[in-house]
């Protein structure tokens, strides 16, 4: 568990958070592995865990009728997968598939949610960090939407 300690404490997401809280998160963390082509989470399932990717690539996908699944983005080493555990209805909005073999740290989102409700200072700190992640993803998504490499006639 020592490695887990260090990884979590040093990850940008956790820096600046109360030590006691970080320790709590570590106690709810576990190493997980996903084989290539398996699904880490599925759209519609309850969202109670989030992941800190340590190795491998994850594809965030949308299942569309009459289409093959559409990859909207990929996440890799050091990135956090999943924020829907934080806000109601606590349900995944996309599929996430391991593109190669993925190693990650699973963190207890349900536990963290409860703590945030009880301690709003903590809640604010956590929300701030996730807001930043969401903002970066939103900006990147908008850029993708622009289809800048397409030929306009």
């Amino acid at each position, binding site marked *: 568990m020592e490695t887990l300690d260090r990884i979590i404490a040093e990850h940008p997401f956790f820096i600046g958070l109360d030590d006691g809280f970080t320790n709590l998160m570590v106690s709810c963390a576990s190493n997980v592995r996903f084989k290539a082509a398996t699904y880490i989470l599925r759209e519609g399932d309850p969202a109670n865990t989030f992941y800190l990717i340590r190795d491998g690539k994850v594809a965030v996908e949308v299942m569309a009728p009459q289409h*093959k699944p559409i*990859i909207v983005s990929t996440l890799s080493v050091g990135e956090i997968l999943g924020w829907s555990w934080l806000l109601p209805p606590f349900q995944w909005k996309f599929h996430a598939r391991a593109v190669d073999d993925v190693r990650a740290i699973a963190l207890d989102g349900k536990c963290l949610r409860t703590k945030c409700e009880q301690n709003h200072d903590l809640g604010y700190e956590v929300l701030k960090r996730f807001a930043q992640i969401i903002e970066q993803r939103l900006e990147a998504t908008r850029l993708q939407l622009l289809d800048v490499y397409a*030929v306009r006639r």
Partner: protein
Amino acid sequence: MTVATAVTTDPMLPQPYAVREVAKETPDTFTLRLEPENAVNRSSFQPGQFSMLWVFGVGELPISISGDPALHDRLVYTVRSVGQATHSLVNRGVGDGVGVRGPFGAGWPLEAARGRDVIVVAGGIGLAPLRPVIYHVLQNRKDYGRLVILYGGRSPRDLMYRKELVTWARNPETQVLVTVDYGGLNWRGHVGVVTTLFKYSRLQPARSVAMVCGPEIMMRFVTRELETRGLSRDDIYLSMERNMKCAVGFCGHCQYGPHFICKDGPVFRYEQILNLLEKYEL
């Protein structure tokens, strides 16, 4: 004020070259290798420069030179077919003639980058004017630090120079990261805009010089990302594009604020143009 230069070949007259090879990079992009009809002509250029390519009776286009600057017997161009003139250019066959004027413009800062890490950020066809930089750095490896190549394309089939991307990555102290806006089930690489690659790169901002080329929107976001990561505005270079007719600063078409892209550019230091990039309809 600069002194009028006496050029050895008249910059206004196309020199006859012939197509020696045509390679298809993507469904709409082709790489042409041209060699001069008159073998005496040396074809040298600085990475980042462009030529005006003339198709007999059709028209003339500014195209960045995308070949190896160490080879002086040829000029290589990667052209995307987007309209009538580019269409006729990419449909040239081996042996067909193409008129070449140039090379023109201010190129990439290879001298200023000596001893430093070089970050090449390319979007779409923007990798073409940057390929000469990659060749130069890899051939003069000890003159440069780390080489980081970040390349974004529309989709997997739109990626150029695929074999070279693989061989480049095998060089020491060289990192190549590729992403696409639209992936597919068979694509096992990154999906997302090129700015998302930064976090996976081994960047050392203080030691780095960045060279960026791609659609203007992409360059705006990339420079912002580079600045956020600690690069100085003097160490970020962009290649700009505007309408060009003469390439020698007389027709006035390529003006970008006070700059003539054909002679003050196309490569600019970010510091020089940062207050122009944000202006709509400049």
